[in-house]
C-alpha cells in the first residue's frame, strides 16, 4: 500500500529523509521474534501452502495491520533472517515477508538509502521467481495489487530521493554512485513489461471476449489447481505501466498500456478499490492532458459517485486515507475540466453537490481567466497532479542541487500554457449562449475585438473543443456549438437525447424474469 504520509505533505516539496531514521528505535533488535509474530508467520505460511486465499487475506489485511499497530508502530518488523527458521526457510515466503517488511518501513518510518536499495533487490528476486513461472500459490488480489502499486510508488519515491542532492551525506552519495542500477527506470519498466508479457494477459483478455476463457468471472483466481500470481501481476502491471508513463509525462503511451482493459465495464480492475481508483485517476488525468475533457469528466464522475456510495465500507481498511486523498484530488481535476469545458449534463447530482461545496468559488474564479484564475488553476493542478519524476541518473558532481521539482514544473508550465490559449473561449461561450444568430460584426463589437481577431477566436474555439482521439477521430467536447455562413454565426445548442434503447433492454430483461417466475407458480 502506498504510504499515506508522503501524499499528505502540505507543500509539494517532499520532506527530507533524516539520514538515520532508525536512531529512534533504541531497543529494536532485528533478531527478536515476539510470539505473536511467530504465530503470524507460521499460520500465514501454512495458509499459503494450503492455498487458503480467504485466510491469507484475513491475515494480510487484518492481523498484519493489528500487529503493526500494536507492536511495530515505530520500529520495523523482525528481520527475515530471524523469522525464516519458523517457515522452513522457504525462499518464496521470505521474499513475500520482506516485501511486506519494506512496505511497513515506507508506511510508518523513513527508509534509509540502503533500505531503498535492498527493497529494489527484493522486488527483483520476487518478480524473478514469478517470471520463471515456478510459483504455485494463490494470493488474494488485494496483496497482488499492493505489490505492483508499492513497486511503482517506491520507484517514484526513489526518483524524488535521488534528485535531492543538496543535503545528502557522503555515505548516501557513495551508495547512489555504487548502486546505479537500483530503481533504474529501464529496470522498472522492463519488469512491468515482462510481467504483462509472460502472463499473456493480453491474450487472456482477448480470448475472454470470445468466450474461450474464464478470467473476470473467477475474479482472476484459478480454480483448476494452478496459480493466479503471474496472471494477476501481469494484469495489475498494465495499470502500473499507465502510472509510470504518467509520471514521465507520456500520456499517450500510458493510455495505450491500459487499452486492453475496458473501463466502460466492471472488470478485474474494479475488484480491489485501490486498483479501481488508481486506474481511473490516471486515465482521467491523461485524458485531461490530451484535451479530451468530456472523457475525463465522464470517468471522474463515475468513480466519484462510486466512492461516495461505498467509502463507508472501507473505513477500517489501511487504504482508507489513500482513498480519501485520491477522492479529493479527483474533485480538483473535475473542477479544472469543467472550468475548461463546461458541461451541464455529464455530472451526477450528488457529485455535483459535493463539487459545488468544495470548489464553486474557485471554479467561478477559473472561468474569469484573469491573473487570479491562473493562480487557481496552478493551485488545483499542483494539488491533484501525480508526482512527476526525472528518470535520468543523477549527476553526482558539484554543484549538488535539488532538481526533484523540475519534472513537475514542466508539466505545470505546459498545462498553464494550454489554459492560456483557451483564455478567450469562455467569453465567446457566454455570448453564444445569448443568441441564436448573430453577425460577426456585431459580436466583434460586443467583445471589443476586431473582426479578424473574432474569426480567429471562433476557430480556436472549434479547434480546442474538438479533441482528437487515439484513432484519429474527432470528438466534440462542446455544449454550445455554432457554424458560420459567410459572416453570420448560427448557434446550436446541443440537445441531450434520452437513452431509450438501454432503458427498453433493461425492462425487457426484467419482465422476462418476472414472467418466468410467475410461470413457475403452480395454481391448484
Amino acid at each position, binding site marked *: 500500500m502506498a504510504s499515506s504520509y508522503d501524499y499528505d505533505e502540505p507543500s509539494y516539496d517532499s520532506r527530507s529523509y533524516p539520514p538515520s531514521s532508525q536512531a529512534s528505535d533504541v531497543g529494536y533488535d532485528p533478531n527478536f521474534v515476539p510470539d505473536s509474530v511467530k504465530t503470524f508467520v507460521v499460520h500465514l505460511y501454512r495458509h499459503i501452502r494450503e492455498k487458503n486465499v480467504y485466510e491469507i487475506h484475513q491475515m494480510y489485511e487484518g492481523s498484519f495491520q493489528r500487529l503493526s499497530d500494536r507492536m511495530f508502530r515505530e520500529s520495523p518488523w523482525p528481520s527475515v533472517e530471524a523469522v525464516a527458521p519458523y517457515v522452513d526457510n522457504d525462499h518464496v515466503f521470505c521474499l513475500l515477508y520482506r516485501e511486506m517488511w519494506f512496505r511497513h518501513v515506507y508506511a510508518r518510518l523513513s527508509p534509509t538509502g540502503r533500505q531503498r536499495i535492498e527493497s529494489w533487490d527484493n522486488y527483483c528476486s520476487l518478480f524473478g521467481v514469478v517470471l520463471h513461472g515456478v510459483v504455485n500459490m494463490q494470493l488474494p488480489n488485494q496483496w497482488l495489487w499492493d505489490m505492483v502499486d508499492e513497486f511503482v510508488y517506491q520507484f517514484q519515491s526513489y526518483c524524488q530521493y535521488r534528485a535531492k542532492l543538496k543535503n545528502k551525506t557522503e555515505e548516501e552519495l557513495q551508495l547512489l554512485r555504487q548502486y546505479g542500477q537500483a530503481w533504474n527506470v*529501464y529496470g522498472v519498466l522492463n519488469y512491468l*513489461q515482462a510481467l504483462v508479457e509472460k502472463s499473456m494477459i493480453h491474450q487472456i483478455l482477448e480470448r475472454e471476449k470470445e468466450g474461450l476463457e474464464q478470467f473476470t468471472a473467477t475474479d482472476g483466481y484459478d480454480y483448476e489447481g494452478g496459480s493466479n500470481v503471474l496472471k494477476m501481476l501481469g494484469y495489475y502491471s498494465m495499470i502500473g505501466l499507465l502510472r509510470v508513463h504518467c509520471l514521465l509525462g*507520456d500520456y499517450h503511451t500510458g493510455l495505450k498500456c491500459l487499452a486492453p482493459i475496458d473501463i466502460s465495464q466492471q472488470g478485474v480492475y474494479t475488484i480491489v478499490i485501490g486498483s479501481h481508483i488508481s486506474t481511473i485517476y490516471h486515465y482521467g488525468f491523461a485524458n485531461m492532458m490530451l484535451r479530451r475533457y468530456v472523457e475525463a469528466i465522464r470517468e471522474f464522475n463515475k468513480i466519484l459517485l462510486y466512492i461516495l456510495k461505498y467509502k463507508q465500507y472501507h473505513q477500517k481498511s489501511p487504504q482508507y486515507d489513500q482513498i480519501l486523498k485520491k477522492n479529493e484530488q479527483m474533485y480538483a481535476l473535475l473542477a479544472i475540466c469543467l472550468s475548461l469545458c463546461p458541461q451541464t449534463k455529464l455530472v451526477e447530482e450528488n457529485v455535483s453537490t459535493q463539487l459545488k461545496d468544495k470548489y464553486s468559488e474557485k471554479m467561478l474564479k477559473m472561468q474569469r481567466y484573469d491573473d487570479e484564475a491562473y493562480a487557481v488553476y496552478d493551485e488545483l493542478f499542483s494539488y491533484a497532479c501525480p508526482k512527476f519524476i526525472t528518470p535520468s541518473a543523477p549527476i553526482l558532481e558539484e554543484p549538488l542541487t535539488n532538481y526533484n521539482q523540475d519534472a513537475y514544473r514542466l508539466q505545470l508550465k*505546459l498545462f498553464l500554457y494550454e489554459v492560456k490559449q483557451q483564455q478567450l473561449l469562455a467569453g465567446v461561450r457566454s455570448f453564444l449562449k445569448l443568441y441564436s444568430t448573430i453577425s460577426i460584426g456585431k459580436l466583434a463589437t460586443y467583445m471589443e475585438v476586431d473582426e479578424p481577431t473574432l474569426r480567429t477566436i471562433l476557430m*480556436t474555439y472549434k*479547434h480546442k473543443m474538438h479533441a*482528437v482521439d487515439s484513432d484519429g477521430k474527432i470528438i466534440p467536447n462542446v455544449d454550445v456549438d455554432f457554424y458560420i*455562413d459567410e459572416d453570420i454565426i448560427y448557434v446550436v445548442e446541443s440537445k441531450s437525447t434520452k437513452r431509450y434503447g438501454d432503458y427498453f433492454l433493461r425492462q*425487457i*430483461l426484467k419482465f422476462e424474469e418476472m414472467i418466468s417466475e410467475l410461470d413457475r407458480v403452480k395454481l391448484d
Partner: protein
Amino acid sequence: MVRERESQQQQQQVSYTVEQLVAVNPYNPDILTDLENHVNEQVSSQTYSLDANLCLLRLYQFEPERMSIPIVVRILIKALMAMPAPDFSLCLFLIPEQVQMEEQFKTLIVLSHYLETARFHQFWDEAVKNRSILEVVPGFEQAIQAYAIHVLSLTYQKVPRPILAEAINIEGLSLDKFLEYQVANSGWALEKGHGRSQLIVLPRNEFNHPELKKNAVDSVPLEHVTRIFPILS
C-alpha cells in the same frame, strides 16, 4: 526503376522492424540509433509514427547525454504536421525545460501557438522567416494547409475567399487553380457572396451542419442487444 523500388521495399522492411521494436521492446537503450534513423526515414518518405517518436523522446529523457537536437527538431516539425492531433504537446511534455529554451524550439513553440489559436496570418509570416528550419521536412506546407482546411471545415459552411486565402497562404491564380481542384475532387463548391466576393462552400460534415450529427447517444451496441436474443427467439 527496379533498384528504386527495391530500396523502397527495404526501407519499408526496416520501418516495419522499428515498429515491432517499439511494440515489443520499447524500454531498451540499444534501439536508440534505430529510432533516430527511423525519424530521418519518416522525414524523407513523408510518413509518420507517433509511437516511435515518443519512444525515442522517452529514451532521451532517460539518457539526456544522448539527445540529438536536430532529431528532436524534426520530431517536433512532424508533430506540428499531425495537427489537429495534440502530438506537438505530447512531445513537449517529454522534453526538459532547459532544452526547450534553445532558439529552434522556441520558434517551433511559437509556430505551434499560432496554429493552436488559428492565427494563420501570423503563422505563415513566421514560417517564412524560419524557412531554413522547416525546409528540412518535405510536405510541411501541405500538412499545415490540410490542418487549416480542417479548422475551417469545423467552423464554416461557407467561408469568404480572403479568409481561406489567408489560412492556407495561397493567393491569386494559384488559389484559383487550388479551388478548381478541390471543387473537382473534394466536394467543394463556389458561390457568390454579398458584395461580389467569392464564397467557398465547404463539404457538409457533422460539425458545420449540426443536423447531420448522428444521435450516437441513443444507438445501442450490438453486444447489449444480444442479451435479449434468447427472449426474442
